[in-house]
């Protein structure tokens, strides 16, 4: 386990380096981003004072090191535009994306496994085509199309757009929170359901042909028990892997749905950071998304151990 933690740490350092370099490569900096065309009006000495204010005058390696040092001490830097500390911003935005990703993954998992079992029940049969069709359709329609159509339909038809109200944290107003996250999670859930469905289908077909399933049927075990205790249980490993990966992608990938549903998630925080050239915001937020992703992978590994006794033995 220790080896895995070391590996995870190394990954995070890699991510921090990557995001730091990529941001420096993008043309334009904080000044042009904030002042826009007005920044042409700045006199040379104004420009110099601003550069130092944004810390742009230090040599690159120094900027990287002192940022990393700050991160290790928990100071994720400051959003110079809003005067907000990045850790405060992230403390507000990460839970939103995490909850959204969790709900979407749960929904996607249930739908994906349901459809996967449905289509695996009769390989290459009508049910198979139906299950695959629905799954692939969910995958194929771009999420922003579904999201915008859903939002405008619900608002125009029922005057129902809970996301117009400020974001309510689950502990503040659980009912409103669920209503605000239900539909975005539904949209993202489809994206999760498709790969989970396809993995479930192929895993179930494969496991169903194994000998111990025939043994179970030979013992007179009911079909439902055979489906869940024997087949699904053994098919869990690839399914959990696929679901874990999808959860990881949602952390960064939900930015479009966060835009349309006005959810103050971390995806949007990074996108705004990139557009406004807020280096501190982007670097720290991406690092935290990466950390969350790495933690999810570790959790998936731990989950393996719980599911598969053979792995637990090692």
């Amino acid at each position: 386990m220790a080896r895995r933690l070391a590996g995870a740490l190394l990954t995070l350092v890699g991510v921090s380096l990557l995001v730091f370099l990529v941001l420096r490569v993008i043309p334009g900096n904080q000044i042009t981003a904030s002042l826009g065309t007005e920044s042409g009006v700045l006199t040379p000495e104004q420009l110099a004072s601003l550069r130092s204010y944004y810390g742009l005058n230090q040599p690159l390696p120094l900027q990287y090191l002192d940022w990393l040092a700050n991160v290790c001490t928990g100071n994720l830097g400051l959003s110079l535009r809003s005067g907000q500390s990045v850790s405060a911003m992230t403390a507000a935005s990460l839970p939103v994306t995490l909850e959204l990703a969790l709900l979407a993954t749960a929904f996607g998992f249930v739908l994906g496994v349901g459809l996967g079992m449905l289509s695996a029940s009769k390989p290459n049969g009508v049910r198979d085509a139906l299950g695959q069709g629905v799954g692939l359709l969910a995958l194929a329609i771009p999420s922003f199309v579904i999201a915008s159509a859903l939002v405008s339909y619900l608002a125009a038809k029922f005057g129902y757009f809970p996301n117009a109200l400020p974001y309510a944290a689950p502990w503040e107003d659980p009912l409103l929170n669920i209503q605000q996250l239900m539909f975005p999670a539904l949209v993202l859930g489809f994206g999760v359901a498709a790969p989970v469905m396809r993995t479930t289908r192929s895993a179930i077909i494969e496991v169903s042909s194994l000998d111990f399933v025939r043994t179970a049927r030979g013992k007179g075990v009911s079909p439902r028990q055979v489906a869940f205790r024997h087949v699904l249980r053994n098919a869990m490993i690839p399914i959990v892997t696929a679901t874990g990966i999808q959860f990881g992608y949602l952390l960064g990938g939900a930015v479009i749905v966060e835009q349309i549903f006005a959810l103050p998630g971390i995806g949007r925080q990074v996108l705004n950071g990139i557009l406004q050239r807020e280096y501190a915001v982007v670097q720290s937020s991406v690092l935290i998304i990466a950390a969350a992703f790495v933690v999810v992978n570790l959790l998936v590994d731990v989950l393996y151990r719980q599911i598969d006794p053979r792995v637990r033995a090692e």
Partner: protein
Amino acid sequence: MSEVGVAIRLPSAATAPTREPWWQRLLASRSGAVGAALTGAVLLAALAALAGLVPHDPIVQHPADRLLSPSWTYLLGTDQFGRDTLARCMAGAAASLQVSLLAVGLATVVGTTIGVIAGWYGGWIDLVAMRLTDVFFAFPAILLALTVVAALGRGWFNVAIAIAIVYTPIFVRMARAPVLSLREAQYVLAGRLLGFSVPRLLLRHVLPNISSIVIVQITLALSWAILTESSLSFLGLGQPPPAPSLGQMVSEAKSLAVVAPWTLFAPALVIVIAVVGLNLLGDGLRDALDPTQER
């Protein structure tokens, strides 16, 4: 997004009856046939566009014919510049496929090579490769593509590079897994005993065995590339107009959905056909190519 982790079944010694060529088996299976049909249709439309066989020029504007609903002259209606949506869908399909094929091609070659080498040699090569892929996996895909395009600037080539960078790690991890187990397989050991050179071993024995997995991954990655390209366009980072790409058309048409819904449904439908087609084709190929598949 990928079926990483699916149990690898080594070909059993069952004496399979003489098999027809793989493509016959592909077309025989339901998903293979439907997949090939759909993907073929999109490919045909794209090639037709490249060959100029389009009802109207996809770029020339006819302001007088703005926002016309589907009619016999404009089968799928026109957009706000009076350009024919059908022609743009065909040209868009060509553009999107162009980006996806390049991106996935790059990702496959680079990713699979690194994966195989990492899997085969192990040791620190494997460690470095794995850490690198973790870094790219941990880095949110859309944001990685976003920053790459913002850095390199637009153009379909840069969009393809961005998507390739996002997918390479998937191919690395997907190719490495089977090589780890194949390395210990008897017949590979036998090959090593017989003194085959490593490249020969890799090419003749290892690659064919993971070819079915790679091919399935390619079709899946192609469908994902098309979707990523459309998301990039939605964020304003897709291919530059006036040349259309499916993603660009969908994101542009999003705000026209009320005024001219056909400008949205046409490209979205082409994306759906392409993605569903490619995924089913992937399934069909996997069944057709996998020697262990009796059914």
